[in-house]
């Protein structure tokens, strides 16, 4: 029942998105623009600083993630559909998981563009260990999106949501971003420091468990008027 509700919510979000491609196109465009600006900012004497690539990837993900989060819930607010969703006789945590999966799909789609783009523009060895990079990206994105979905959902009712989302989200997710950047940097060393990267990967997985548990636990009281 739980999984069915979550998948239904996800299916609904994907169906809406596939009708216009609005969020996915704006988010990926924004991420690409970010990376382009950074590629100018971090170029010295035509020699791009390859090691800064790790930071750029994660900053682009964090920024475009905020955009995806606020747009997704703005859409829900417009039609008052979130209210309807919450009135449905379904468990609240399941609705949360469904929304989280939708956000994750959007951010992963952005990453598919951003990561190769950074590797290309910064000529950095991002793909030394593709498996571990994938692991870092997946765990990091889950940690970021778990907190983001919770706060974006709460902010649907608030008047100041555009300012408040970054203020709430960024401080709390800085540890996730730090762990992601450090882990990715360890992978780009030659030879790649796999022990270090797996330590950061473990830390990210730990963050995921803590953040998802806390979010599931708090979603119910937070969304009750």
């Amino acid at each position, binding site marked *: 029942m739980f999984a069915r509700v979550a998948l239904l919510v996800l299916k609904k979000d994907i169906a809406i998105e596939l009708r216009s491609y609005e969020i996915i196109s704006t988010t990926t465009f924004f991420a690409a623009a970010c990376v382009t600006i950074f590629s100018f900012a971090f170029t010295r004497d035509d020699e791009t600083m390859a090691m800064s690539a790790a930071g750029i990837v994660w900053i682009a993900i964090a920024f475009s993630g905020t955009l995806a989060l606020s747009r997704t819930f703005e859409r829900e607010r417009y039609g008052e559909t979130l209210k309807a969703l919450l009135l449905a006789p379904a468990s609240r945590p399941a609705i949360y998981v469904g929304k989280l999966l939708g956000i994750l799909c959007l951010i992963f789609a952005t990453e598919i563009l951003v990561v190769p783009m950074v590797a290309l523009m910064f000529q950095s060895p991002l793909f030394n260990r593709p498996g571990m990079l994938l692991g870092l990206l997946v765990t990091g994105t889950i940690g970021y999106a778990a907190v983001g979905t919770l706060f974006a959902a709460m902010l649907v009712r*608030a008047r100041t949501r555009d*300012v408040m989302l970054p203020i*709430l989200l960024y401080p*709390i997710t800085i540890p996730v971003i730090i762990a992601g950047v450090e882990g990715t940097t360890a992978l780009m060393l030659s030879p790649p420091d796999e022990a270090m990267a797996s330590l950061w990967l473990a830390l990210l997985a730990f963050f995921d468990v803590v953040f998802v548990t806390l979010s599931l636990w708090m979603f119910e009281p937070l969304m009750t008027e």
Partner: protein
Amino acid sequence: MRKIFLPLLVITAALFAYSPYYINQAPYESTMLLVQKIFYYHFATWMAGATAVIVCGVASGYYLFKGSVVADRVAVATAELGVIFGAFGLISGTLWGRKAWGTWWAGDARVSMALVAELIFIGYLLVRKYGGPGSEKLSAAMGVFGAATAPFIYKSVDWWRTIHPKTSVMSSLNDTPGGVIMWNIVLFCTLAFMLLLTVVLAARMRLEELRADLDRLYLEAED
């Protein structure tokens, strides 16, 4: 609380007035000498700050699930105190680092994580102040997440390669000459800071109570 407030205040004041003399008596630490004397307040302030943060997290959770107004007031007051103690912890740490590490800001793991916690609770206060209606719940969620990072700050030095002293520094203190005196002073300062936390918390809670009274009266006046 009101009955024991004044005695508590006097005790706290006495402890703080005595602490500089007591710290002055402490023997010099063998490698860092005079600058190590920052440690007594530095450690104590982080203990008080961590207590404030954890209390804030628990109170926020309690407010979310039980809707207790008192818990909400405790959470606001402790968040503010956490920011104040955290600010002093960061300042004293920077001053110490200037001497011990040769640089103001070394970007080491625990310092960065402490700054993150400081940011979270400044964010808490910002949300509280500018969030508009319903900001109590938003900030409560932030308080819970903020408290969840506290264990990471504590353990970060053990996990990451870093220059900050490890958590074992406290137990090794007993082995050094004069260690017992230093240990006693550390405990003394921590006690003083904990009492200060309690006293200021009580004063800050009183402010929240008065504000609630004011709001209630305004509502009554409108009816």
